[in-house]
């Protein structure tokens, strides 16, 4: 249960970070508070869009789905439901793979680091680790018999 709570909390923070990047991308926020990083450079590159949509929007969508699923998994009727656990692990793995791809682009293609993107990468990695640990752990509460 504690792992799922941590996962939900991390997902909410990730959703806020992705929303921040998305609002910047669509011009609602004037500047990114990036310190000495290269946020604006990364956001101006062609890799900041995928299939015509801002990458951050995929982040918003992904975190939102994980958040809804995580919150559902905290409800008493789903606490012991392994399907929720498996679905969370599957979605987190997709998110983690996407994060690896984006981080590789920053490090090896753009040679620039966007701190907010890295924050999101760390959060998604933690979510993935938690979801895998949850997946491998024994169910604390037996799933309903039907």
């Amino acid at each position, binding site marked *: 249960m504690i792992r799922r709570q941590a996962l939900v909390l991390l997902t*909410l923070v990730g959703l806020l970070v992705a929303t921040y990047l998305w*609002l910047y991308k669509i011009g609602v926020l004037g500047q990114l508070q990036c310190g000495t990083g290269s946020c604006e450079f990364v956001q101006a590159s062609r890799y900041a869009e995928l299939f015509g949509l801002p990458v951050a929007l995929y982040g918003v969508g992904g975190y939102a789905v994980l958040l809804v699923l995580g919150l559902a998994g905290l409800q008493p009727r789903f606490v012991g439901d392994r399907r929720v656990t498996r679905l969370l692990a599957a979605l987190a793995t997709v998110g983690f793979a996407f994060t690896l791809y984006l981080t590789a682009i920053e490090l090896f293609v753009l040679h620039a680091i966007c701190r907010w993107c890295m924050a999101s990468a760390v959060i998604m990695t933690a979510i993935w680790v938690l979801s895998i640990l949850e997946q491998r752990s024994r169910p604390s509460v037996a799933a309903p018999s039907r």
Partner: protein
Amino acid sequence: MKGFYLLLGAVALIGGGVLWYGSQAKPERGGAGNGGAAPLPVAATDGFRGYTLGSDSAPVEIREYSDFECPFCAAFATVQMPVIREQLIATGKVRWRFRDFPLPTHQYSRYAALAGQCAGEQGKFWELHDRLFTQHQWAQTGKNPRSPFRDFAREAGLDLDKYDACMDGQRYAARIQASVQEGEAAGVRGTPSFFVNGRPYSGRGTSDDFKALVDSLTKPHK
């Protein structure tokens, strides 16, 4: 469990509040060297039709769709364009209009286009345009060109604080996107692409060929 939901609500409230404040505070935000409020991103509908060289009354207009990272565009700008400027633009025969068409296959072309627009904001578009093309090594290293672009901006005499504020805010991103859409609608598929008096030009992109075409268009009818 109740404590957890309280914590979750607090995080959501604080985070949402910060985002809301950020969106509301934008018009007042200004950098130290930004001369006050940071201008809003320029909308695609600002009516901008590209930077021009030459007389407004020139009988021929050549519109170029170009990509600063494209090697063919650089070759054209450095080899053919000086002759075209001298023989066709300076003589009042041609007005040259530059339109951004950053290709999605290039890593930094959109960033370079932003740099051009931010230089244009300070009346130095062509100065930066020339540097981006004549010192094209930045496009071959594969490295982040932020630093060389700032050097170009400095050399061109730009106010770097204003330039940085413009770049950081991606102030002209929508304008560049509008230029790309305009090009796509006109049938542009690669760069450089040219339109002469609004018609697609499919000839060779050499100064001689442009001169021959312009001469034929401007020759008085007998």
